[in-house]
């Protein structure tokens, strides 16, 4: 394994300043350190090798198929990186007067218009820095909307929602009411009716849900929610299955967030930066965070005064580089092509679902959306989802999401995304078939996988019970 750079430190120097002297400092001597800081000291060659070797250990989308369910690890074109790195974008400071930042403001303004067209929701904020941050913003809007009705203290969340939904609701001070899904992995209308009422502030629906399924009863659901005086929130992290095909506003959605870093091909992973824009219908427009871009026909400006607004949820304008990438992505396609993209995401997931039918059954045996949740065969109880995931690493594939959603035992959540070729999908299903056959023959190959990675099986239990961190 590659040692840490501090462990490799050998006192060599990458750069020598010939004849340079340390300049006098204005700091009082009592504040100066007595000993030199312990920094790693290596020659430039050793530093280059260290980081190059580390980068070669990276298991990423640019090197491998990455079917991590729920995460939409699709390919992000490199040209967008070039666009958002243009000096006109990177050299402006967020406090630069609007007169000098018209281009960037125009992009944000136009992007909002495109989102309006895609979702049918009238007004947007692009400030939130992630999907969950968007949910947080949405829940605050719901709280502001119900400000006069103190009894609306509950948010209903189905068990097929993203785990962040109940967490967000709780964080915003709401009581979380969970409802169980029906046998088809959809919202159980009877269960929903039981808990909907004058206490309900909002229902948070992940659509398509985490089982990769579309809620066929969505129109009935939104009718029930609105009849109860509550708002319908859509977690739109999975919008890539619907984009160009159906507008959330037409399904009765009042508030939604989208993950620009998922649906609109901006890079993500490793903690961000992300962008979780929030859209609302007209009636809720004034509650959106401050800092929206407006246009008077001549000039773009930032709205900084609005008494009804919930306030700002992030400093300045949000993660602008992500917004620029997402805007570039959207400008490349017309509505019809966006629909084709969604259909391809759905087709790819279903292709894998059908191909794996005799080895790993889909837990809900029906057409799925952009992702499919598999389980291990019932007659092979010793085959765990964890083993399959680890063995896939040996075979050159990133592991799918496992043990999520919680309603599926031994869940293997596979999301191929629309950017993968048939050849890649075939290679993946061949690997899954191989794992199935290995499990039949000798499960120990799987129990001790991965065999070929830099680090083999780790004792997760020991690591969690007796954590021993070092750096």
């Amino acid at each position, binding site marked *: 394994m590659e040692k840490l750079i501090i462990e490799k430190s050998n006192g060599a120097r990458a750069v020598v300043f010939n004849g340079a002297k340390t300049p006098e400092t204005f700091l009082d001597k009592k504040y100066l350190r007595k000993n030199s800081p312990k920094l790693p000291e290596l020659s430039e060659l050793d530093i280059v090798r260290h980081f190059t070797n580390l980068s070669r250990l990276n298991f990423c989308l640019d090197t491998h198929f990455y079917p991590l369910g729920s995460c939409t690890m699709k390919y992000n074109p490199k040209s967008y990186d070039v666009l958002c790195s243009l000096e006109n974008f990177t050299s402006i400071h967020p406090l630069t007067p609007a007169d000098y930042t018209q281009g960037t403001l125009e992009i944000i303004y136009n992007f909002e218009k495109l989102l309006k067209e895609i979702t049918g929701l009238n007004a947007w904020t692009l400030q939130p820095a992630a999907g969950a941050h968007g949910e947080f913003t949405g829940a605050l809007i719901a709280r502001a909307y119900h400000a006069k009705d103190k009894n609306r203290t509950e948010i209903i969340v189905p068990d097929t929602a993203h785990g962040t939904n109940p967490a967000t609701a709780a964080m915003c001070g709401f009581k979380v009411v969970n409802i169980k899904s029906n046998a088809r992995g959809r919202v159980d209308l009877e269960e929903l009716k039981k808990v909907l009422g004058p206490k309900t502030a909002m229902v948070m629906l992940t659509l398509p849900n985490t089982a990769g399924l579309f809620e066929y009863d969505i129109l009935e659901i939104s009718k029930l929610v609105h009849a109860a005086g509550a708002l319908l929130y859509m977690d739109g992290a999975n919008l890539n299955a619907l984009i160009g095909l159906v507008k959330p506003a037409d399904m009765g959605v009042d508030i939604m967030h989208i993950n620009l870093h998922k649906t609109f091909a901006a890079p993500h992973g490793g903690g961000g930066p992300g962008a979780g824009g929030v859209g609302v219908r007209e009636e809720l427009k004034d509650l959106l965070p401050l800092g929206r871009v407006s246009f008077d026909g001549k000039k773009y400006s930032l709205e900084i005064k609005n008494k009804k607004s919930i306030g700002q949820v992030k400093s300045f304008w949000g993660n602008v580089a992500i917004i620029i990438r997402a805007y570039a992505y959207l400008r490349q396609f017309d509505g019809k092509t966006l629909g084709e993209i969604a259909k391809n995401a759905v087709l790819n997931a279903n292709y894998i679902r059908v191909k794996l039918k005799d080895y790993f059954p889909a837990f809900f045996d029906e057409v799925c959306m952009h992702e499919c949740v598999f389980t291990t065969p019932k007659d092979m109880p010793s085959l765990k989802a964890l083993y399959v995931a680890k063995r896939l690493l040996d075979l050159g594939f990133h592991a799918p999401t496992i*043990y*999520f959603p*919680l309603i599926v*035992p031994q869940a293997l959540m596979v999301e191929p995304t629309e950017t993968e070729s048939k050849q890649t999908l075939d290679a993946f299903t061949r690997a899954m078939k191989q794992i199935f056959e290995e499990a039949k023959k000798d499960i120990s190959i799987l129990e001790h996988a991965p065999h070929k990675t830099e680090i083999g099986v780790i004792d*997760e*239990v020991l690591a*969690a*019970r007796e954590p021993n961190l070092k750096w």
Partner: protein
Amino acid sequence: MYNQEKCKFSKTHEWAFVEGDTAVCGISDHAQHEISDIVFVELPKVGAKVEAGKSCAVIESVKSAADFYAPLSGEVIQVNENLNGNPALINQAPHGDGWIFKIKISNAKEEENLLSFDAYKATL
């Protein structure tokens, strides 16, 4: 040991061993197996009021964090402190040293809502 055949079970896999007006509570052998290696247990505080069917503790494994729903309502009178240092006790003996807490029952009638061991087994 809290003989599982003498315990009452909830559909959400908790058990209650009732003795007079108190009950010891834990999770079933099936549940510990499903959750797999438990690495942390968040216990309720002694004196806390728990409500049947409501979450009152959290059981964490390397796989996930699961809510523990009180099988009966009452006041917590004792918690199994040993779980703080050794949460694996639940995996080793879910009906023995892996008990989670003991309550003073506030509504004895609720016991009727729980399942016998055989009835619980039939739900698995």
